[in-house]
């Protein structure tokens, strides 16, 4: 169950529309290493996670990632408000526009629609936590590439915030991995869900 809170995790207030930037920002909304995939990955993996600490971490970071998906879609939305026909045509957003108008459709910057094949839910706590740590690093890289291509300070502020969260989540998943591994090493039998 979730409670919706009527505020973003970090403010997004973008004054200047920018079609090219808007399209790039889609990557962290519905791209391979984007926030929607991150949230669904952790939300799915939590059911077979071991130890209370690691379960809590997956549950709570999944929840935060949902708020990050909202932030990225908000950045896209605000960047597309007030665009002219020529700006859409010249920027390369035209292909997106004919498919979705200015609606926020979960997809990658290069147009591939969001898909669950971007993540795994393997039912193995160690495998899943390693994937999660890798996912946080991939998202951090993506934010850094987005920051490289962004000049607008109104866009940079939330991007920097989101990049920093990837670093924190990586740290927290690393701690969860240590805790889960210690727990599994204490078990006398080899962990195998098929044997339970």
């Amino acid at each position, binding site marked *: 169950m979730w409670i919706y809170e*009527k505020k973003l995790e970090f403010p997004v207030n973008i004054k200047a529309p920018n079609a090219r930037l808007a399209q790039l920002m889609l990557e962290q909304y519905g791209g391979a290493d984007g926030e929607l995939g991150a949230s669904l990955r952790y939300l799915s993996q939590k059911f077979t996670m071991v130890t209370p600490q690691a379960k809590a971490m997956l549950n709570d970071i999944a929840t935060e990632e949902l708020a990050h998906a909202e932030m990225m879609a908000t950045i896209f939305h605000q960047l597309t408000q007030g665009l002219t026909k020529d700006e859409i045509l010249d920027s390369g957003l035209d292909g997106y526009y004919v498919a979705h108008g200015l609606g926020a459709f979960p997809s990658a910057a290069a147009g591939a629609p969001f898909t669950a094949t971007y993540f795994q839910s393997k039912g193995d706590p160690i495998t899943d936590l390693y994937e999660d740590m890798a996912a946080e690093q991939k998202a951090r890289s993506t934010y850094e590439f987005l920051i490289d291509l962004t000049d607008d300070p109104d866009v940079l*502020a939330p991007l920097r915030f989101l990049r920093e969260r990837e670093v924190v*989540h990586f740290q927290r998943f690393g701690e969860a991995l240590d805790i889960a591994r210690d727990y599994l090493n204490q078990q006398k039998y080899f962990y195998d869900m098929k044997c339970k």
Partner: protein
Amino acid sequence: MRAYPENYNRPNRPSRPNNGNGNGNGNGYMSQEEMYQKLMELDFISLDIGLFLNSHPTEKEAITAYNQVVSAADVLRNQYEEMYGPLCSFRSYATDANEWKWEQDPWPWQKSANPSLSGKECM
């Protein structure tokens, strides 16, 4: 928790900055935007300490800090909601007995809901 009588009406008074974070002197006033941004800050701090506590559940100092921040946010959220309407789905009181304000603009993805950080960047 506040208990609202049936004829409860939203008090029409300015907010005080005494939001429990130790900064308010009780004399100045916070604007709606300042309250909203302060609430964002406090909620973020408690969220982040909460993640830390998931993997460090016996860190007493962090638990104390967590409770202090949640308490400060609670005071400020109550003030904000009494003046400007509910912030949480099915957890906030409908603070105006005559009007359902949850659905009112701006929603968080709208520019006007968000404080501008221009000129406040960390260098």
